[in-house]
């Protein structure tokens, strides 16, 4: 989305600071790392799964919601559960 216009000001300040806004976000980050290490998927597959989210979902979901949706997609597609 480089160069795409209309996204408004950068969320500088307290709201934009935390790396993880809630515990579940850190858990999602950790889950992705654990599953990558286990070889269930690689980083490119994770990015691809995020990019494959329907545009409305991509734009309305938060950053780690997108990661969670992508992990769920990959886990299902690879029949891991």
């Amino acid at each position, binding site marked *: 989305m480089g160069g795409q216009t209309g*996204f408004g000001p950068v969320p500088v300040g307290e709201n934009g600071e935390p790396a993880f806004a809630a515990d579940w976000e850190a858990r999602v980050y950790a*889950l992705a790392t654990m599953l990558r290490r286990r070889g269930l998927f690689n980083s490119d597959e994770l990015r691809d799964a995020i990019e494959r989210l329907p545009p409305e979902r991509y734009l309305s979901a938060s950053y780690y919601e997108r990661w969670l949706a992508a992990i769920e997609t990959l886990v299902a597609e690879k029949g*891991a559960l």
Partner: protein
Amino acid sequence: MTVHEDHEDLPVAARTRRLEERLIAAGLTTDDEIDEYLTGLYTKATPVNGAQMAARAWADGRYRDLLLSDGNAAAAELGFSGLGYQLQVVANTADTHNVIVCTLCSCYPVSLLGPSPGWYKSFAYRSRTVREPRAVLAEFGLALPEDAGISVWDSTSEARYMVLPQRPPGTDGLAEGDLAALVTRNGLIGTALV
């Protein structure tokens, strides 16, 4: 029915926990492993690491040259080995100010700067920094001189970028530890001068 369709309506925290439980039950991870990983992340991945490297580069010309030509070797010298990415360090000068972004997804040198701040991952930062960096930097309170050039680096590959800020004036007598204390995470991304 896929995991994806089944639980979309659950509050996201509960959805995360449900996925975790199913993965643990399938033997793909454990609670302990996740906890250990996060503890390690919080304690070891911090911008103090990048700051140490910047301070060393200010104090030692040989280290500065190494940092700018082989970031991974320079990181390893200070004990940060096995980065998992190719570290490219770009130096601010009187003529050029560098700023880092990842427009495609938010890639970031986590081991040297800690987990990335929310703003770095925002659509606004990702979309605008390559197009109007001066305006973006102004939102961080950084007003660069009119004649300062801006070099934006979009992290699209296995390389991760870090800025070597300019050493602030009036710091000649300072010990390396005190120099490192001057370097902020935003300085290492390029949204602050130092």
